[in-house]
């Protein structure tokens, strides 16, 4: 177990600023998720922690020791790549044993540890196979076993679930989470999938254009987004933003409901909602439409749970409302959240 500290780290590729002056600190044993659209610098940041990319500026510390210029092998980290990067010419056994052999561990201990790691991920019967004879899920487990066999102090994962099909992904997510809790190793996980981020992370770091936009628990990120980027990137459909002068009013689609269903200790705000399009999704209904007339941004989405079986038709206008507790306000100029509502 260890703590990772990233101090003022930047990385430029030619003219491109992939990572722009990032400060970040992990808590010991936590599961930290780096979330952002592709090209936001999250993978580059992870690779710098791993040591396969060198920062242009700033320092990286593992357990209070500066490791910025140290090669990966001196950092006692493990990394799982998006492609899994299994060595195609080695058997599963030799793949998992590889990080131990580079450390000069003796043969008997290697055998014991490989069998322990393989048992942990349920791949004991695959040890003699070559990677190309494995399914996607099995490959992923081999990659995890190879990473964990060395008992690393920091565990880095670069979108390890994105090559699995949807069904497998859900179960792999759960397993990964339980496994991390059991081992308790500090984990940094990169993904562009917000569902993964919300489900896995103790804390989420939302990144965009090389900068950190917000760090917080899944609940903070979802309910109290720091700016309009986080508000619209996290959540599907994204937060509704209504433009009124200098202040944008935001609320989540599931808080925007028919007026008689909405309560609020501080009262409610009612809008005439003109429904233009409706999607029936089984567990819920998505209603697309417009509110008001004067505002620039007036397109909103409402997410009705399946239990609300009010008859609603496209083309008609209904009174919808949001509880004042669920309203968030953002400064139109810089996108940041403010406490001040529209005048």
């Amino acid at each position: 177990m260890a703590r990772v500290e990233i101090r003022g780290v930047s990385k430029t590729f030619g003219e491109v600023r992939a990572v722009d002056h990032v400060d970040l600190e992990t808590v010991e044993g936590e599961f930290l998720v780096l979330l952002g659209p592709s090209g936001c610098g999250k993978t580059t940041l992870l690779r710098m922690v791993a040591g396969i990319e060198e920062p242009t500026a700033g320092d990286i510390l593992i357990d209070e020791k500066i490791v910025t210029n140290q090669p990966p092998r001196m950092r006692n980290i493990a990394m799982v790549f998006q492609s899994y990067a299994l060595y195609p010419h080695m058997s599963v056994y030799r793949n998992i044993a590889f990080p131990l052999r580079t450390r000069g561990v003796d043969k008997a201990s290697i055998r014991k540890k490989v069998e322990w790691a393989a048992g942990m991920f349920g791949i004991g019967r695959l040890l003699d196979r070559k990677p190309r004879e494995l399914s996607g899920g099995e490959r992923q487990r081999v990659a995890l076993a190879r990473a964990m066999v060395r008992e690393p102090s920091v565990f880095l994962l670069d979108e390890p679930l994105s090559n699995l099909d949807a069904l497998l992904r859900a179960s792999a997510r759960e397993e990964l989470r339980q496994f991390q809790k059991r081992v308790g190793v500090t984990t940094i996980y990169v993904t562009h999938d917000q569902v993964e981020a919300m489900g896995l992370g103790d804390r989420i770091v939302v990144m965009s254009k090389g900068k950190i936009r917000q760090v917080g628990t899944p609940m903070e990120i979802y309910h109290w987004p720091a700016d309009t980027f986080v508000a619209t990137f996290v959540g599907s459909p994204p937060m509704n933003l209504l433009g009124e002068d200098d202040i944008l009013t935001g609320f989540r689609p599931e808080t925007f409901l028919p007026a008689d269903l909405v309560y609020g200790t501080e009262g409610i705000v009612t809008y005439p909602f003109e429904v233009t399009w409706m999607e029936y999704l089984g567990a819920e209904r998505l209603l697309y439409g417009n509110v008001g007339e004067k505002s620039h941004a007036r397109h909103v989405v409402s997410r009705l749970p399946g239990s609300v079986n009010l008859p609603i038709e496209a083309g008609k206008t209904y009174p919808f409302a949001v509880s004042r507790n669920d309203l968030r306000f953002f400064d139109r100029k810089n996108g940041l959240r403010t406490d001040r509502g529209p005048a």
Partner: protein
Amino acid sequence: MSGTTGEQAINGTVENRGVNGGGRAGIRDRVGLLSKLMIAPAVFYVAAMIGFPFILALLYSMSDVTTGDPALHLVGLRNFRAILDDPVFLLSMKNTFFFAIVSQVLVILLSRVIATALMKEFRGKWLARFLIMLPWTAPISLGTIGWLWMLDSIFSPFDWVLRYAGLLGAPGALLGPDLNLYWLGVPALAMASVVLVHVWRILPLATVIQLAGLSSIPRDLLEAAEVDGATPWRRTLEITIPLTLPIISIAFLFGLVFTFTDVTVVYVLTRGGPIHSTQVLSTWTFFKGIEGGDLAQGAAISLFLFPVLAGIAALMLRMARKSEVV
């Protein structure tokens, strides 16, 4: 040209089906016939330019045909027996293997080093690449004539440099008091020279093949190995070399075939001398069969190479298939 025809055929098919709805089909629609037509030139080429001469060589090797008397009388295996009794043939056989294998081992080692260097980004890389490829673009004979001058017994620039450095041509000098080394006049040096020129000649091709092999290794494999704690040395030995072994073998076998069958370098540099010390099967075939006029024996000598080359070709095909799997 056949490519254009093929495209027209495909377009034609689509059009005809679309417009006529399965009406009268022209030759362009008959895929079976069309494919036979398109492969015909290749079959003809193989039969006329490879099959026919090969059968002719088989026939010649068992006959008494000479350039003076082209009439063909079969004489059984007499030619082969005569060859095997000939010490020059045995020496050529030995030289062929020595020269091909030594030169190709050197080529593989050197091309590996160059390819690894060319995988890195550096200033003037295009110039380095251009210079490395240059020998491949020159005709073999011209390049070899250049080397003939470089290795001249009196005016060799190598000798100048050695003399200037005090290694040659002075009493007590490391390489002897003679003014020249006589590169092509001393058996061991002559063989070394032939090997050197062949290395120079094949190196560009091998470098390109090795470059292709190196760049086919996914980058994250090497990065994973780095994270797994492997030193650069271990990454080379345990990841890069095993993964590129099939393609290295192809480069090696390719070079082997090239050197086994090459006449030019030995012919231009040494004509097999001094005293047959650089004589190889291909040149001996030429001297015996064409210059000596004994076509039958020449054919018999050249056929000795056949099983070796056929074996190498079979290995190459297997390697090529293997390298696809990874």
